């Protein structure tokens, strides 16, 4: 195999799986299945035999859960955060493992007919799906708690802010979606370009920065999802 294929750069190339009318991005789905598999295996191995004094992988799963609970508790509040832990936790774990798999695993060694394997989060479909689910989640949270009076918040603190409040419902998923997509794609592009130019040592600091960014983006997405849900749950006076 030619080593250069690791260093090649493709922007916006996808491995299309087509039926007559629809197409999907094969490379995104393949890596997302890998992520799902990894999370499932970790969950089954770590939580298969739970003990009150944790051993081995249970330490990791407990730490992850405590971390996620902490995010949910600070964003949503002590009383109502429990039922949102699965949503926020899954967002965090999925994005975190996706980003790090993109940054750590040499996906590009596996050659595809078109496009290249990478983090599922460098496809805008993934980030848009997560952002839309977050929107649905905070609408669901607010309406299930307050009923129709949830929509009162659009005219608060003053009725003339209505357009801005409505606009917010669009900017929230947009910003979530593009923040994650842009950061991950930009990171992979920067590393890819540097690998093309200087294949040795020079990209390493940027790869480390990429690891850092990836973790931060997972945290930011989970925190903002929690903040939006907490915002629609909080009582207005």
């Amino acid at each position, binding site marked *: 195999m*030619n*080593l*250069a294929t690791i*260093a*090649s*750069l*493709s*922007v*916006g*190339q*996808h491995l299309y799986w087509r039926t007559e009318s629809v*197409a999907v*991005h094969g490379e*995104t*789905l393949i890596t*997302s*299945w890998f992520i*799902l598999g990894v*999370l*499932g295996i970790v*969950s*089954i191995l770590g*939580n298969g035999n*739970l003990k*009150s004094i*944790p051993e081995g992988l*249970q330490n990791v*799963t*407990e730490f992850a*859960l*405590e971390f*996620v609970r902490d995010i949910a508790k600070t964003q949503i509040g002590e009383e109502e955060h429990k039922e949102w832990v*699965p949503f926020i*936790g*899954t967002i965090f*774990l*999925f994005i975190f493992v996706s980003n790090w798999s993109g940054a750590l695993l040499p996906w590009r060694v596996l050659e595809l007919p*078109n496009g290249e394997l990478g983090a*599922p989060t460098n*496809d*805008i*479909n*993934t980030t*848009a*799906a*997560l952002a*839309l*689910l977050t929107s649905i989640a905070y609408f669901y949270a607010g309406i299930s708690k307050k009923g129709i009076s949830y929509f009162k918040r659009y005219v608060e603190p003053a009725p003339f802010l209505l357009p801005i409040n409505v606009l917010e419902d669009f*900017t929230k998923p*947009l*910003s979530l979606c*593009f*923040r994650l997509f*842009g*950061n991950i*794609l*930009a990171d992979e*592009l920067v590393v890819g370009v540097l690998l093309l130019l200087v*294949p*040795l040592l020079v990209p390493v600091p940027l790869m480390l920065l990429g690891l850092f960014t990836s973790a931060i983006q997972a945290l930011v997405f989970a925190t903002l999802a929690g903040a939006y849900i907490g915002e629609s749950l909080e009582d207005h006076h």
Partner: protein
Amino acid sequence: METALMRGSSLSVRCVRRYARSGRSSVRAQAQATSSNKAARDGVVERVRSKVVLASKTVGVQLMLALPALAEEAEKEPGKLFDFDLTLPIMAAQFLVLMVFLDKTWFSPVGKVLDDRDENLRNILSGVQDNSGDVQKMEDEAAKVVSDARTAAANLIASEKKAAQDAGDEKLASLKKKLDAQYEAASAALVKEEEGARKALEPEIEKLAKQIVEKVA
């Protein structure tokens, strides 16, 4: 915070667009260049390849092979960054499945373990915090046990003493009775003997008295 984040996100969007545009334009430029003189390009590629082989043999830097890779890149269809299709709902469905699965196998059971441990520790801690009462109670109990033991011992000593006294007294009394009886018997025997002796001596005394009287007379 919100505005800062939004600004950050719009910045990143702009960056992404710029990347996309620059990437696309360079790709297009190369595509044009390659289509115009393909034969010349092949020659260039050949020459570069031979040079690169030489370089990799001498220096060992393989990755200059990236140049032909870029040329291959130019023949692909132009990339689409914002290409929404059925991948989106599939990803959403996968996410929901993952959420349910992780909730069943991770968040709920591990959360229960954490909560149980928390409660357990809290119970133990609260038990330790008000153990001054326990200590007082234990001290009282100890004092009571000691005093109980002391009275029991005193009672035991007294009763034993009494029993020993009684037994001694009884023994003494029976011994005395026995001695008394012996004494009685001995003194009775002595009296009897004396009587016997006196009776035995009577005729002798009479005889002596008669003799004395005869002599005197």
